[in-house]
């Protein structure tokens, strides 16, 4: 889906003056080239025969969802342990940085998608409490996940802290991120998805739904594994990912295949710039590059605004 406004915007420099200096036409050509590469990349994600990637395997589109569900059902109870093992504990810093970038306020309504066990939701509430002198105010987070097991773990965790599901500050909702059924249009101040979007079959639909539910002025934030551009570090990182992590999975959770899927899915995810283009495609605007690398690109925060 190409928005008419973005087409018009790209065509404007060509229309205004045929004799205009080269920089404008080069910029227009570059924009067209970028859009073509985005379209090509979106096409690569699902080809005409209705298949998509599941890690390095090719599977039918209809099957991916249940395969992903299977992965997460089997890792749900050990999810935090798995994260600590894979990232050496650094994932906690990434998630804290993510919430600090968001800088929520006591009146913020957050939709945290694929947030099953509630890591982000908890940090969100802690941040508000700290900034607001101990009170939560009207801050509310809706934790949305496709997997009931992950939601169960999350709701239990929150219940132990006195934050009941359906109470004034948190609610746990089951559903598909590509539809966001039950979430109204223009109802959320912010949308976060941490380490979840790479598991979705149709990333463009997820972004589109995010745009739908955000209020004008709302912020779309994605925390995900990115591409390490530094060649030396990327060699070390690849070695660690493919040689160490699946074995850790076997030792810690007796499930090598899920971990193999996880490291492969990171490689299939679009690059930082490609993902920014996808966001812009759906109508989000960005400040600056639109993304920020953490730990040399092992993780990246993307931020788009509905304005």
């Amino acid at each position, binding site marked *: 889906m190409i928005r008419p406004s973005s087409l018009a915007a790209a065509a404007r420099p060509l229309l205004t003056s045929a004799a205009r200096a080269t920089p404008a036409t080069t910029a227009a050509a570059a924009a067209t080239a970028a859009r073509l590469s985005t379209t090509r990349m979106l096409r690569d994600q699902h080809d005409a025969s209705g298949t998509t990637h599941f890690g390095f395997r090719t599977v039918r589109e209809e099957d991916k969802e249940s395969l992903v569900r299977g992965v997460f059902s089997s890792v749900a109870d050990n999810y935090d342990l798995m994260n600590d093992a894979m990232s050496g504990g650094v994932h906690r810093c990434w998630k804290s940085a993510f919430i600090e970038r968001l*800088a929520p306020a006591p009146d913020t309504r957050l939709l945290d998608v694929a947030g099953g066990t509630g890591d982000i939701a908890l940090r969100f509430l802690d941040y508000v409490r700290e900034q607001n002198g101990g009170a939560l105010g009207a801050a509310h987070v809706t934790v949305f996940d496709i997997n009931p097991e992950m939601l169960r773990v999350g709701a239990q965790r929150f219940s132990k802290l006195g934050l009941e599901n359906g109470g004034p500050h948190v609610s746990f909702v089951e559903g598909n991120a590509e539809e966001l059924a039950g979430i109204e249009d223009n109802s959320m101040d912010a949308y976060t998805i941490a380490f979840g979007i790479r598991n979705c079959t149709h990333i463009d639909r997820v972004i589109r739904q995010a745009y739908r539910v955000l209020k004008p002025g709302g*912020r779309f934030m994605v925390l995900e594994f990115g591409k390490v551009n530094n060649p030396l570090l990327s060699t070390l990182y690849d070695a660690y990912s493919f040689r160490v992590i699946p074995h850790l999975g076997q030792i810690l959770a007796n499930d090598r295949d899920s971990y193999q899927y996880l490291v492969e899915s990171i490689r299939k995810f679009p690059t930082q710039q490609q993902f920014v283009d996808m966001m812009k495609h759906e109508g989000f605007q960005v400040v600056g590059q639109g993304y920020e690398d953490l730990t040399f690109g092992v993780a990246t925060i993307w931020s788009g*605004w509905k304005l």
Partner: protein
Amino acid sequence: MRAATTASMAARRLAAARLMSTIPEGANINEIRQQLLRTALQLVPEYSFTDKTISEAAKLHEYPSTLRGLAPNGARDVIEVLFEDGIEHIRQAHAELLAVSGEKKPGMTKVVTHLSRARLEYMIPYIRQWPDAVQLLAHPTNLPFALHHLHKLVDEMWHLAGDKSFDTNYYSKRALLAGVYTSTELFMTKDQSPGFEQTWEFLNARFRDTAKVGKAASDVKTTLEWGANNLKGILMSRGIRF
């Protein structure tokens, strides 16, 4: 009590809404960001140079308070808008000075003193909250930013005055003016005299001290130390000792 606060809040919002311009339809993100920061600057007398100012500005424009994420450096971005506006202000002041002088072009000294005073007058609405900004700018990560803008300011003033020096005078002139300006600005934060009379006297005294403002090769160190000691005093009064 609650009725009184909601009424006063409504009155403040109305006043602020009259001051700020609305964001036009179809504005792109950079324009929205600029307008947000301008509105935040107008709210500084109420909320000072803090992140809350930007959240309140967002709410005034009927956006969620998380819109303050457009300015990730927080209050520093508001200060940047103030600095940029300040440069525009002195350019206008210079144009007015030329219009008033007519045929007889004013000398360099006169231009520099006039522009320094104009820039300080620009600070009047924010001067009571300025110590908070100074505290922020004194932070080591913000020091390059602060020095960059101070340099821009004094460079602009000398440029408008017609300075054409090409030797070490270039540096000593700017350093001297930086010292005079910052020390007067810090003095101004505590000045309670009507119409800031004492500040203008202070400013003139500092210029006299620098003797020949046009061809200075004088004691840069003393003037900068003066500014630095004033700054130290302000920070100590806020509990930051070193």
